[in-house]
């Protein structure tokens, strides 16, 4: 019986996956006037989910569209493009990458065409150069040849350091490049019209925050982030939420992690014990066991230099 149930479950999963693969438009929700968001599933990137784990979206101005992150595969990128084209024929003038992680940039290839400018943090080309090939090899293992074969690493040509204002036609966007925090190429996008902040992975909800930059840097940006005059945030992962209340969980996690790691370093514990840090946070997050030891290891190697 158990075996029959297992086979039935496997069949259902494969039917779901096939349905998703054939679906032409990524489901998006209008979260504010002219702003559409697809909320990614809280999971690791796999063959079954097309790598569609991050939040991606687009903003429509009078003249043009800006896409903010393109998803974890060209397939997801194409479906995002289809969702845009189902709503408007305005040109896609900008594709903005909030940082260099695969779940945010692997869909870039779907948007490469004349007149579309890729925008990113001034450090992003270097990050993609250092990691692009490794990411393709690593995600081939979990996502398979079919999805990965068509992924191209597309670095930005319009680079942001400090702030940059883009206009989509009576729709000014303020882009801001941050110093190393979640990663060393974090970029936020603020829509002045609706006071919506696309925070990329500077903000996590539900999904355990992932540290791939600097824990001290990240904690240091939180106050400045919180002070942005936004009403709502599109986090990199997790539901669209009210601002700045959305920062509270992440702030508590990062503070706990830093403080526990400091305790380990101070008492002379080796880095192999780092994973015990922030244990009190386990029940509050999804994918905790996938990411916490990694975060703690990275935090340890930084905090031991204090």
């Amino acid at each position, binding site marked *: 019986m158990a075996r029959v149930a297992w086979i039935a479950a496997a069949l259902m999963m494969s039917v779901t996956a096939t349905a998703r693969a054939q679906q032409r438009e990524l489901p998006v929700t209008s979260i504010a006037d002219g702003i559409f968001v697809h909320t990614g599933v809280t999971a690791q990137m796999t063959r079954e989910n097309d790598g569609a784990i991050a939040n991606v979206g687009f903003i429509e101005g009078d003249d043009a569209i800006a896409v903010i992150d393109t998803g974890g595969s060209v397939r997801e990128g194409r479906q995002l493009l289809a969702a845009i084209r189902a709503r408007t024929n305005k040109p896609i003038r900008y594709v903005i990458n909030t940082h260099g992680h695969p779940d945010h940039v692997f869909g870039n290839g779907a948007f490469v065409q004349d007149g579309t400018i890729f925008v990113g943090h001034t450090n992003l080309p270097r990050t993609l150069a250092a*990691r692009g090939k490794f990411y393709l090899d690593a995600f081939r293992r979990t996502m398979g040849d079919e999805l990965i074969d068509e992924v191209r690493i597309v670095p930005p040509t319009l680079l942001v350091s400090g702030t940059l204002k883009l206009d989509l036609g009576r729709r000014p966007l303020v882009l801001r490049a941050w110093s190393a925090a979640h990663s060393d190429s974090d970029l936020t996008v603020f829509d002045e019209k609706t006071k919506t902040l696309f925070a990329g992975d500077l903000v996590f909800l539900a999904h355990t925050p992932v540290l*791939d930059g600097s824990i001290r840097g990240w904690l240091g940006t939180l106050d400045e982030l919180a002070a942005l005059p936004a009403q709502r945030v599109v986090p990199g992962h997790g539901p669209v939420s009210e601002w700045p209340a959305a920062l509270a969980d992440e702030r508590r996690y990062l503070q706990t992690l830093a403080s526990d790691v400091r305790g380990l370093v101070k008492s*002379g514990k*080796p880095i192999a014990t780092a994973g015990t840090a922030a244990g009190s946070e386990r029940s509050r997050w999804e994918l905790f066991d996938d990411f916490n030891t990694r975060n703690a290891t990275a935090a340890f*190697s930084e905090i031991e230099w204090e």
Partner: protein
Amino acid sequence: MLGSPLRSFVVAGLLLLGTPPALAADANDPWPGLVQDIFNNRPMNDGSDVIAIEMPGRAEDAAIVPVTLRTKLSPADSRQVRNITLVIDQNPAPMAAKFQLGPDARVSEISTRVRVNNYGDVHAVAELSDGQLYMVKTYVKASGGCSAPAAKVADESKNRLGQMRYRQFEKAGEGPASGTREAQIMIGHPNNSGLQMDQVTQLYTPAFFVNELRLWQDDSPVLSMEGGISISEDPNIRFTYVSNGAKRFRAEAKDTEGHVFEREWKTDNSGT
């Protein structure tokens, strides 16, 4: 009749290609080729009574994977561990490090951090004073998610290039009289792999890493490391040895651009 010359031809061909695939247990296993390249095909004895290697089963952070090597020879054993070579089979530069153990320092444990690029075996090979090689291995899965073996903040370790720190730890259950000490050396260095291509120039950044580290208590060698790009940025070596009562601890590191970093610290002979 035809068999014999054809066979010789095939064997000659295989010899030219390196490891004969038919003779390897698994044609994709790089280890036989590494034994040839790194150890000149010397025989490998089972090392499970000689050394231990400890690593997490999964590389959580691909750029910083802790590894501990521990000697297991009983005090009654007349043999000594001369050196230990650490090999990460599936990395672009598999030979991660070779540690020489000071003849009088009785080093019993060495921990460091390495990059792990892929799923695969990590081997530790000890050479003993009997001239034989003893091997142990462990299997490590590559990290998941967006973890990469590259630097997280590319400028950070450049900012602390050449900074060195020494720390002595309290050794649980060991009084000061035992002479057993646990200490750590940290060196600020990007230990850059050089495997990244500049998108504009299409040229690879040259590798830039610490290739030699030597540690002494007074003038007696404790431990040295010949390192490669598989050692994590900001190389960090934590080790257990027996103090000879020295007043000073000294470290010298050299990198591939010819920088020499030297520092000396007073040792704390209370044992903590």
